[in-house]
């Protein structure tokens, strides 16, 4: 009895999964590089600060090799995920919103940067009521700023806008109240 004529089709290489495996291997490499950079004092020769990093590195290497092997055998991404096409445009707007927040939070302060992010993310998710989103974002950012950050005693860079907007919310609440 021989198994020469295996009927199984050659497994297809799964490129995304393979890149994940290789990326993880690169991470293990970075761990090794950073572990070598840890200066070890001879006083701690028993179990120094490098033992766990090395163990982690070995673990990561083994796991990434197993993942690469799985990728060579056809990958593991669930069918349901594979069939769902990625909405790059929506994601793009979310990413732009996040980056805008990162770039603008220092020059403009938390509130302005948050409103811009809010509007971009809403747009990405398909909202077309931009003006309404600006107002919602403003109320939410201010609520987050005053209600959340102040209550928790967290200091989130108050730009001049926060102070300027104080008058705006006053007006806003009075219109809502009236």
């Amino acid at each position: 009895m021989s198994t020469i004529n295996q009927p199984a089709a050659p497994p297809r290489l799964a490129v995304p999964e393979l890149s994940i495996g290789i990326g993880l291997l690169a991470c293990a490499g970075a761990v090794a590089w950073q572990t070598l950079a840890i200066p070890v004092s001879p006083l701690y020769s028993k179990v120094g600060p490098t033992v766990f990093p090395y163990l982690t590195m070995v673990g990561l290497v083994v796991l990434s090799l197993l993942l690469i092997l799985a990728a060579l055998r056809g990958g593991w991404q669930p069918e349901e995920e594979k069939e769902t096409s990625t909405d790059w445009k929506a994601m793009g707007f979310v990413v732009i919103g996040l980056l805008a927040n990162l770039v603008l939070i220092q020059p403009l302060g938390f509130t302005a940067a948050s409103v811009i992010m809010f509007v971009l993310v809403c747009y990405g998710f398909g909202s077309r009521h931009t003006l309404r989103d600006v107002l919602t974002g403003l109320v939410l950012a201010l609520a987050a700023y005053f209600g959340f950050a102040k209550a928790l005693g967290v200091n989130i860079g108050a730009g001049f806008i926060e102070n300027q907007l104080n008058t705006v919310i006053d007006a806003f609440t009075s219109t809502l109240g009236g």
Partner: protein
Amino acid sequence: METLGHLAHGFAVAFSPTNLLWCLLGTTLGTAIGVLPGLGPALTIALLLPITYQVAPEASFILFAGIYYGAMYGGSTTSILLNTPGESATIVTALEGNKMARSGRGGAALATSAIGSFVAGTLGTLGVAFLAPVVVKFALAFGPAEYFSLMVLAFITVSAVLGSSSVRGLTSLFAGFVIGMIGVDLQTGQPRFTFGMTELLDGVDVIIAAVGLFAVGETLYMASRRYAGKDEIVPLKGSLYMTAAEWGRSWKAWLRGAAIGFPIGAMPAGGAEIPTFLSYAIEKKLSKHKEEFGTVGAIEGVAGPEAANNASAAGVLVPMLTLGLPTSATAAIMLSAFQSYGINPGPLLLTTQADLVWGLIASLFIANVILVILNLPLIGLWVRLLKIPAPQLYAGILVFATVGTYGISQSPIDLVILYLLGAAGFLMRRFDFPTAPVIIGMILGPLAETQFRRAMTISNGDWSVFYKHPLSLTLLTLAFIGLVGPHVWAFIEHRRRRGPEHVPGDA
């Protein structure tokens, strides 16, 4: 009976007006975030961690525990009415619950899940109160070697045994280890994994990790699959009162669910998926109304898993409070709240922090009462929350994510790390890597390292401490079985099933 005295004292702590307010706030907030898809207790507690600098430990833990329990109640509402499980623990609830809602029995489904949660949550909390002192007696005998081995066992169970793949679960866990090691090594003062950046010397804050993985990652994921079909809210029809027949079918399921959920939650394995699936399978098997399963929705299929879910949520608190061993992402973040107060959860916690622990346990009983009121008569309020449109919901989540992250040190570097972790979280969702082991590895990894180095220092660098102590050896053996056992089993099954196919001439 000692426990009853402690509990009475705990109730005195929990019934103070301010603590009652914290409990009310926590349960309300918890229900809200449980109802809202995309927000979970781990993320919410992480965002609220800065409160630990402001208020007494009792207050913040009563708040956190209220959120933790509340999210379990709220999550079932979303599962039943929207068919989108808010959390992995409520997947099973959606199976039958949504079917019931579609056939006009949503009210009964919500009622059995809320009352079942109450029954199981109360039984589970009683379990915590009586089991915790027992575990403590046992845990006092633990040395560093045993602690390390116990953590290894927990690592294996939370990452490799639960979930769809042990390799991917362990990968998440090891990624968590790496994140947890960033910063100054506490024992020698050496910086590790900082890539020469001073911003990384303090390590990556657990808030950033949780917000990145759970909020940013989730938002990117939802944006990427915007066209993947939307779930509609099933309008709430029918009365919220269960008929006598429905009560009759529910109560046994509640008790069975609680009996399954609590022990599994209390084991160092943790996790709510196994007990809920197990309870579902048992209810399906025992039910006299099998035809209702998967068609119009069977009430037992909601009652059992919901009870199992809440009882296991209570069970998770046992290893957390007595051993300092978190077995879910939420518990891991609560552990970091303990650390922020300079408290080390472990066997001594029950005596050194008696007010805190017993006040917390007592507040859980109160939380259950508040929650059953919040989630039955006031259910209409929460259903309205479900109507928040996705664009504004996710954009709003990102605004709060920014507050939580940027507020730590006003450093844009933190936002960069947040986004990197968010991108990682997105890929993990797309490629079926579990995210909870990252948080657990990040929090528990450094603790395991400390115990490991302690054990090695005591033994003078002799590795045999880990296998010469019988208890430690047992724990490591269990971990090994947990890691290898399922694969060996699958291999044997595979062989057995494959056998007949290889008969010559079969092709």
